[in-house]
């Protein structure tokens, strides 16, 4: 029982654990233009995503809160992937990522960049909502016009 299990190989890859241990863009923003909170009441995961959108681009982003390794790593990689990008591109990436996790697309057909390291989550249906929580909050934030939208939402894959 000392060999690595499938989950260790396809769920907790080094890059994922690196983002879990040292999440990028972790913190808050002084003057966000958009923000939202995502919660998963079953497991207690709770993330807040704040961003500055400038001329249709994500010019700054932070997230904070608590969650499992998958949840934190996914949100951390999300901030790297969307920072400096156009909002429409961030939304398209979210759609691809979600489609891969829910089995509607295969990762070979859906360019995900570094996020491909989370594609293995699709084999663990109980964990898909963990990987999508930060993205759900991001989409909610972008959809909200007022920057004070702090309403909690629950994530369903």
């Amino acid at each position, binding site marked *: *029982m000392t060999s690595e*299990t*499938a*989950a*260790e190989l396809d*769920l*907790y890859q080094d890059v994922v*654990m690196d983002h*879990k241990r040292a999440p990028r863009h972790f913190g808050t923003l002084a003057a966000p233009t958009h923000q939202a909170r995502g919660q998963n*009441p*079953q*497991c*207690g*995961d709770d993330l807040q995503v704040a961003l500055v959108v400038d001329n249709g681009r994500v010019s700054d982003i932070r997230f904070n809160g*608590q*969650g*499992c*390794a*998958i*949840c934190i790593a996914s949100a951390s990689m999300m901030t790297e992937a969307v920072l400096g990008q156009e909002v429409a591109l961030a939304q398209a990436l979210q759609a691809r990522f979600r489609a891969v996790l829910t089995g509607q697309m295969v990762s070979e057909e859906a360019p995900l960049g570094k996020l491909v390291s989370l594609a293995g989550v699709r084999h*663990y249906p*109980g*964990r898909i909502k*963990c990987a999508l929580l930060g993205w759900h909050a991001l989409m909610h934030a972008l959809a909200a016009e007022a920057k004070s939208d702090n309403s909690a939402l629950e994530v369903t894959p």
Partner: protein
Amino acid sequence: MGDAFLIDPLEPDAVRAQFPVLAQRIYGAELAYLDNAATTQMAMPVQEAMRAFEQHDRANIHRGVHALSQRATDAFEHARSSLKRFVGAGADHELVFTSGTTDALNMVAHGLSTSGMHPAWLQAGDEIVVSGLEHHANLVPWQQVARRTGAVLRVLQPDAQGRLHAADLRPLLNARTRVLALTACANATGERPPYEDLLQLAADAGALTVLDAAQAMAHAAPALSSLACDFMAFSGHKMYGPMGTGALVGRRVALEGLEPLRYGGDMVAWVSATEASFAELPARLEGGTPNVAGAIGMAAAAGFIDGVGRDRIDAHLNALREHAVAGLAAMPGVTVLSAHSRVSAIVSFVADRVHPHDIGTLLDQRGIAVRTGHHCAQPLLEHLGVGPTTRASFALYNTHAEVERLLAGVAHALKVLQ
């Protein structure tokens, strides 16, 4: 049905042979099923008793003059008396079949807060006391009842170690206290409160007392007659019986005071086009066709437990928990909830910088089934300041070798995840 099986819990092979579901591999590893507080597996004698009913005696009860209906009615009523004996009910007690503990607790909360022939037991300004250890099923119904009736909900909070104290209950009791709702074992922590004393105090203050015995019935089941308890709820599926079954057992006079939650067939005495009067207990609270096979299965499960011996099961489970607590508490960064508890089959823990879901997934990869999250007890975990936990819970078929696998699995998960 359900007589001596004479199984020694120290003979794991003989015990496990009664639970064929255990003999399987998960991701190549032997299944170690340690999620028994969520649901236990169903014993073969239970499955056989249910199958025998379905194959030979199935008919609707209490209404036919034919042979099968009479046999089904007899089997159902025999199940009722077996379970009354099992829980230590006396002559002034009655048992009503429900779909589970949640259903039973909702029947009580509804029945005490709804007026029917008489004004409701709970009125605006009355007080309800619940403990801070409760499962949501023994909290949310009382929250809703308080909101609907204008009654006040008071919470008997545990101390920082998760223990309840009689001295903390006394100041909460007064002439307006009408209900105490309490668990016999906290499902999220394994805490076993001094419910005998707490129920007595509340009863002395004039309150009706409600005991959630879901986590106790498979082993440390309280003897109802010895308790100041008006209503006790429990589930079949947490005591090696079928899912979707349960019971509300209590003082006949208290049960008679409940306004029924379900009106319909079987619970009425006579019905005109505009009015109805209700049947006597227990039918009064059992509207509609009940889960007859389920009731028979539950009684068979009680017989199975008695056949093994509750004291022996209890000793085995306490030893498994003690083993797990000692091993987990020795791991750096791990905190065991209610580590002091000595009469429990539940061990719940948190680990620094590691989320329970990640531990649960890695344990699953080694065939070890545990529960992770809030365990339907969010306010308690918030009060204790711990958030979600990993919970292993034991049944009579679990072994010390499985505890060792759990400990090795947790140690490995912490190494991967920290």
